[in-house]
Structures are given as structure tokens and as C-alpha cells.
């Protein structure tokens, strides 16, 4: 998929501008280009061309001088993101430079960013779950936040639409709280997972364990290859076996001839014309030359990732919008959410010493939400719910074996003990006071204001986490595991990397930023379809919903454009 049109013609006028090329930006580009719009994608980082720029994709540990270890210089560059534990020499080049792009934590918050073409679609976890009306109705029912302007029926066809293109593997369960996707064949549970599944499902009515539903291909799909079970996804997949913008949406957009992508383009603001009553373009800073350039377009999709999108809107000031574009409600920057992370249980599994597996499956098990889904499962301790991810593998730490010498060495060459863990993801409520604000004291490398993040989990999330850990220990005990450790790392928000909210959708312009088609209420040619738009957070991974909302909004945008409504 070579030959991207990388700003070759120096045009400054387009039909559409898409800010960001990650999961949602890629979808916006694909849909708009396929509908015939000349589209400019502005990417703040470098070009990462599928396969060609996956420089570490085939490296074994011994091919890397420090076998994954980071130098003090690299640690300094990623001094914030390193807390995640995800960054090694194999992926370091796909994580943003924290030193050049600082942010301020009023309370602890981990903000993970991928500043390159494809954004975090190169790095994401690929877990893909549909939301249900349990999620879309939650705010209205329990009174937290504002009501979603859409319901499942509005998004259902768009889930199907994006799933057919992206390729989602998984097992259909027919659960109302976790609607089935349009599935490719599921990946398989290993023998220990199958054993634990049967023990849990026998003893806990209403709980299911299934293989993770993932944007990994289990068979060739739309010209892409199937997963080869190397589990080196975050380095970029040479087979295009997982969904990334680089392997899927951007090549599709490019194939139309309508796409221009401009790297090193830091969007400073969206330009709003007070007289015309709409946005007319964007203002960028070239990250390499520091040059200021303006681009104009009829419609603008802001898909810079949740917090960056809102940062751009807050920085887009005009006479009409003194407090940031679309901020009539005062809700811009507020209601920041993430899922809780790393709380659950782990234990050892006995009795399968002669069993192993082949292949490094980039996926695990999933236990769908089972609390607060009906009257019978209602909790008196919290609202909303949680689901678990997890899995079984042979590992253990050989250094723990109390021995050394010849026999010891020979013993640790054999497969280690079976371990199984589950870790919960709890829904976070939309609290007005969990917010981001522009910081004019701390400037980035380009002299632009940065973000101050002020967010925390509160009593409801803590109560959910307590239940997650208790239930996890109970399920592992019931499954017969040994040496069980319940855990709660008490991570602050951000570790889940599911930042949602800060420019929420809603029915009422007085209490929300976006309408039911992701249009800024008072600037309808500006669309926000990344995590910023989310009105609540569900307990399931959000990316599939961003894809569906984006495709839906893009198609609405084109339709409105044709009717000359924008």
C-alpha cells in the first residue's frame, strides 16, 4: 500500500479535514474518501507505512542489543508512559515523547499517547465488544451524567458495518448485555481455560467465560492475512492480521485517490468563522519547521484521541466561542472517564503438567458483566458493572525455585507451572469534576499550552473494584486453583487507556457538547467521534464503538453536505 499522497500538491483547500489517523480518524478518512470527498488527514507524528515501517516486527530478543531494556535516555523520553510497563525497545518508537509533550497531573493520571500515523491503533489491545442498551440507558436510569442521545438500535447496523470490514473474531453467546458481533471464527481456549470455564459456569449461574472478542483475523479477510500467533502485534503486524489504521482504513482511503495525509502536522486550533456561523478550517504548526499553516474544508472531523481532541477544541477560541469551540454548556473538558485496571486474582493450576500449547495467542478469556444486569443481579453496593479479561499459561518465575546448579538448570528448561488470572474492568461514572483544563504555564516543545488533568476514581469505582477482587478470588477458589493472590494495584485513571468523555454527546446543548450524530451542537460541520464523545463508559472496551460512531457520523456528514445543511 505504498504511494500515499503525502501532501504532494500543497493544496490548502479540501472537502474534509480529519485530525488524527488512529482508530477513529482512520475510519473517518475511509468513509469520507469512499463517499468522494477530497480528504486531508493531519497527523502530528511521522508516517508509519504498513509493513515497511515496522522496523522491529521480526526481532527475537537476542537481536536487540539490550533485549528489550531501555536506556536512561529512552526512559527520560518516556518518563510518564513508562509507568504503564508496556514500553520496551521493540515498541519504544511508537510511544509519544513525554518530554516534548508534557502534561500536568493535578491528581495521578497516566496519559498514553501514540504520535504517529495510525496512532494507538498500532498499540491497542484489540478487544472488541459491542455496547448494549444496558450501557446506552444507564445514565438515564440511574441519573449519573446525561442521557445518551442514541440507543443500541441506532448504532447496531454500524457495528455490523465496521465489523465486516475490520474482521472481529469471537464466540456468539446471545447475551443481552453483550450483543454478539458479526464474527469470524473464535480463537480457542487452551485446556486449562476450558477446565476453569466449566468449573465456573457450573458453580456460578449467570456467569459465562468465553474467548476474547478481538480485532484479530482467524482467517484471511479483505486481502489481509490471518493471525500467525507470534504475539508481536504492537510492533506492527506484517500480515495485517489485526485491525490498525495502517493496515486497513488508511489503505482503503488511499485507494480512492481522495486521500492526502500530512505528517508532522500539529493542529493548533479549529478556525470558526463568526459570520458564516461554522468552522472553515484548521490551523497547524509544522512539527519540523514550526511553520504555521491554515487549511480549509467544509467539514472537520476531530479524532486526535479523547484528551487531545478536547485540547484542540478548548484552544479554538473565537468571538462566538470564547471558552473553546462548542463549549456553550461549560461541559467541554469535563466528565473524563477510564476503566479501572489490574484488579483481580491469580493462582496456580494443578493437574495439567503433561499439557502445553503451541502458538502465542494474542488474546485471552473474557467473563462478561453479570452484576446489575437485571433485578436478580442487582447490587446494593454500587451502580453499573464490570467484566473480566484473563487467561491461563505456563510460566511461573524459575528464579523462585529454591535450588541452583545442574539439576535446577535442567528443570527450568521444562515448561513452568500453569497459572490462571482474571482482571476486571469496571465502569467509571461521568463526574463533572473529573476534568482537563488548558495549562498556559507549561508549554510544549512548540510553545503551545498543554493539559492539566484532574481526575480520580471515586466511591462507586472503589466499590466495584472491591467486588471484582472478591468475586475473582471466589471464582478461582471454586475452580480449584492453588496459591491464589487477590490483587488491586489501585491504579489511578489512565492505566486502562480507555480515556472517554470531555466532549460528551447529549440530547441537550445546555448540558452536552455534541449531538446524536457527533456534531458540535453549535458548529454542526465539526464532528468528534473519538473517545471524547462518550457520554458514559460502559465496562467493555470502547474502540469498536468509536469505529461504529465514526462510520455513522461520516455518513451523516456526507448526507448533510449533499443536502447543503453544513
Amino acid at each position, binding site marked *: 500500500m505504498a504511494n500515499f499522497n503525502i501532501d504532494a500538491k500543497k493544496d490548502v483547500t479540501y472537502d474534509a479535514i480529519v485530525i488524527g489517523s488512529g482508530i477513529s480518524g482512520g475510519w473517518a478518512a475511509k468513509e469520507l474518501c469512499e463517499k468522494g470527498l477530497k480528504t486531508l488527514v493531519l497527523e502530528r507524528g511521522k508516517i508509519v507505512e504498513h509493513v515497511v515501517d515496522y522496523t522491529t516486527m521480526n526481532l527475537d530478543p*537476542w537481536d536487540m542489543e539490550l533485549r528489550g531494556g*531501555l536506556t536512561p535516555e529512552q526512559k527520560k523520553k518516556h518518563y510518564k508512559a513508562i509507568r504503564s510497563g508496556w514500553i520496551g525497545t521493540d515498541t519504544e518508537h511508537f510511544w509519544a515523547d513525554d518530554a516534548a509533550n508534557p502534561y500536568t497531573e493535578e491528581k495521578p493520571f497516566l496519559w498514553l499517547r501514540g504520535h504517529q500515523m495510525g496512532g494507538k491503533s498500532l498499540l491497542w489491545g484489540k478487544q472488541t465488544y459491542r455496547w448494549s442498551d444496558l450501557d446506552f440507558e444507564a445514565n438515564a436510569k440511574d441519573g449519573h451524567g446525561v442521557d445518551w442521545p442514541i440507543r443500541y438500535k441506532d448504532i447496531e447496523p454500524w457495528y455490523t458495518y465496521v465489523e465486516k470490514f475490520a474482521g472481529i473474531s469471537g464466540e456468539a453467546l446471545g447475551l443481552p448485555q453483550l450483543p454478539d458481533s458479526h464474527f469470524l471464527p473464535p480463537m480457542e481456549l487452551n*485446556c486449562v481455560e476450558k477446565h476453569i470455564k466449566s468449573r465456573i459456569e457450573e458453580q456460578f449461574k449467570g456467569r459465562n467465560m468465553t474467548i476474547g472478542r478481538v480485532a484479530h483475523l482467524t482467517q484471511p479477510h479483505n486481502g489481509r492475512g490471518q493471525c500467525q500467533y507470534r504475539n508481536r502485534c504492537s510492533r506492527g503486524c506484517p500480515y495485517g492480521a489485526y485491525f490498525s489504521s495502517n493496515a486497513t482504513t488508511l489503505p482503503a482511503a488511499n485507494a480512492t485517490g481522495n486521500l492526502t495525509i500530512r505528517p508532522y502536522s500539529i493542529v493548533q486550533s479549529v478556525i470558526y468563522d463568526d459570520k458564516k456561523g461554522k468552522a472553515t478550517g484548521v490551523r497547524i504548526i509544522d512539527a519540523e519547521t514550526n511553520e504555521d499553516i491554515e487549511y480549509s474544508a467544509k467539514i472537520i472531523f476531530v479524532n486526535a484521541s479523547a484528551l487531545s481532541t478536547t485540547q484542540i477544541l478548548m484552544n479554538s477560541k473565537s468571538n462566538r466561542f470564547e471558552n473553546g469551540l462548542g463549549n456553550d454548556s461549560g461541559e467541554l473538558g469535563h466528565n473524563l472517564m477510564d476503566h479501572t485496571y489490574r484488579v483481580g486474582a491469580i493462582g496456580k493450576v494443578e493437574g495439567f503438567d503433561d499439557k502445553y*500449547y*503451541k502458538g502465542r495467542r494474542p488474546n485471552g478469556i473474557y467473563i462478561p458483566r453479570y452484576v446489575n444486569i437485571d433485578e436478580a443481579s442487582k447490587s446494593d453496593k454500587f451502580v453499573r458493572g464490570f467484566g473480566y479479561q484473563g487467561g491461563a499459561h505456563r*510460566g511461573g518465575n524459575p*528464579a523462585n525455585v529454591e535450588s541452583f546448579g545442574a539439576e535446577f538448570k535442567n528443570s527450568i*528448561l521444562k*515448561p513452568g507451572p500453569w497459572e490462571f488470572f482474571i482482571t476486571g474492568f469496571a465502569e467509571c461514572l461521568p463526574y463533572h469534576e473529573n476534568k482537563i483544563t488548558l495549562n498556559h504555564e507549561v508549554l510544549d516543545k512548540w510553545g503551545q499550552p498543554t493539559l492539566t488533568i484532574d481526575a480520580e476514581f471515586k466511591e462507586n469505582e472503589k466499590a466495584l473494584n472491591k467486588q471484582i477482587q472478591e468475586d475473582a478470588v471466589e471464582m478461582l477458589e471454586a475452580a480449584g486453583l492453588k496459591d491464589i493472590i487477590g490483587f488491586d494495584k489501585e491504579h489511578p485513571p489512565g492505566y486502562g487507556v480507555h480515556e472517554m468523555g470531555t466532549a460528551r454527546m447529549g440530547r441537550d446543548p445546555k448540558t452536552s457538547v455534541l449531538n446524536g450524530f457527533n456534531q458540535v451542537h453549535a458548529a454542526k460541520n465539526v464532528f468528534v467521534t473519538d473517545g471524547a464523545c462518550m457520554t458514559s463508559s460502559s465496562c467493555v472496551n470502547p474502540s469498536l464503538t468509536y469505529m461504529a460512531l465514526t462510520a455513522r457520523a461520516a455518513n451523516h456528514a456526507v448526507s448533510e453536505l449533499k443536502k447543503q445543511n453544513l
Partner: protein
Amino acid sequence: MDRRKALQKTGLFAGATLMMPTMLSILQSCNEENRLHWTPEFFTEDEAKTVSLLVDMILPRTDTPGALDVKSDIFMDKVIARTYDAEGQEHMRSEIAAFNAKCEEQYGAAFIDLDESDRIAVLQEAEANSGKFNPGVWGTSVGEQEPIGFYRGLKSMAIWAYFTSEEIGENVLSYDPIPGNYEPCRPVSEVGNRWSL
């Protein structure tokens, strides 16, 4: 140091199959006035000898290569030199010093100068008294982690260096860079050693 004494001191690994390069290098180093045959980036010469001896005792050569055969000690030195910050490096140095001070106190000499039975006793005691690593979930250990201490930490690093060396990773452990499919329940007998990747 005379050859005979050196042999006794490395007697832990005695046996015909062990009288090969590992031993020879130790003997040669004796002949070269007990000098290291490599230049550490971080360790002092005595620290390097201590670490080399430790990793050799933990992961000796058997019918498969030992830690020294795959230069685990040299790699560990490089990792400490290039990835540890100054504080971490200082900590490593002080831990080696404390380890040797304890050997002096209990057995009357630094670790590398002890005879074999004393060194074995030191390691046995370290095994019994070092904390153990909690299991990890997605790259981070969970639960209340007790202090690990120098010995277990070094042992863990030695095993990592050993497993991720090309020789062990490709030829001793089961190596399959492109599995192609996932077999969820394959008998151990059909795999052999643990997967290297």
C-alpha cells in the same frame, strides 16, 4: 592460585563433561594472574568475578550450555551499565559488597575466595532467605511483594540473560518464531522444553 586449588574450588561442577571451556577459561584466567578474559562496562574486576561465579553456580554447563557459555555475565554487566540509572547502579554495587561482607563475616573470605563447600553453603542460605517474586499480570507484579534481595534478583536476571541468549533461545528451548496457528492443548511430549518466545 594454583591449578589444583582452582579445580577444587570449582568442584561443584566436577565431572568429565565439565572439564571443558568453562573450566578452561577459569584455569586460563588463573594462568593470566587470575584476570578476567573480558572487560566489564560496569563491574569492577572483583565484582565481575563474583557475578560470573554466581551465575556459573546457578546455571552450570551440563549436557546443555551453561550461563557462562552464552556470556550471561557479560550481558548482565552490559544491561546494568546501559539501562540502570546511577542510583540503581550504586545499589547493585552496594549489594555485591554486602554479599561479600557477609561471606567474610561467616566464612572468613570474599565469595570468590571461598572454597566450594562454603560457597554452596552461602547459596543454600541465600535460597532459603531470599524473598520470592510475586506473579505478574500484564507485565506488573501483583499482591504484596516482599523484598527480593540481591541473590534472588541476580538469579532472576541470570535466567533472563540465559533464556534470551541466541544459543539457548534457538537451540535449547523450543523455538518457533512463526507458529502459524494456535494449538490449545498440545502434549508436553510433543513440544519438549519450554517455548523460548
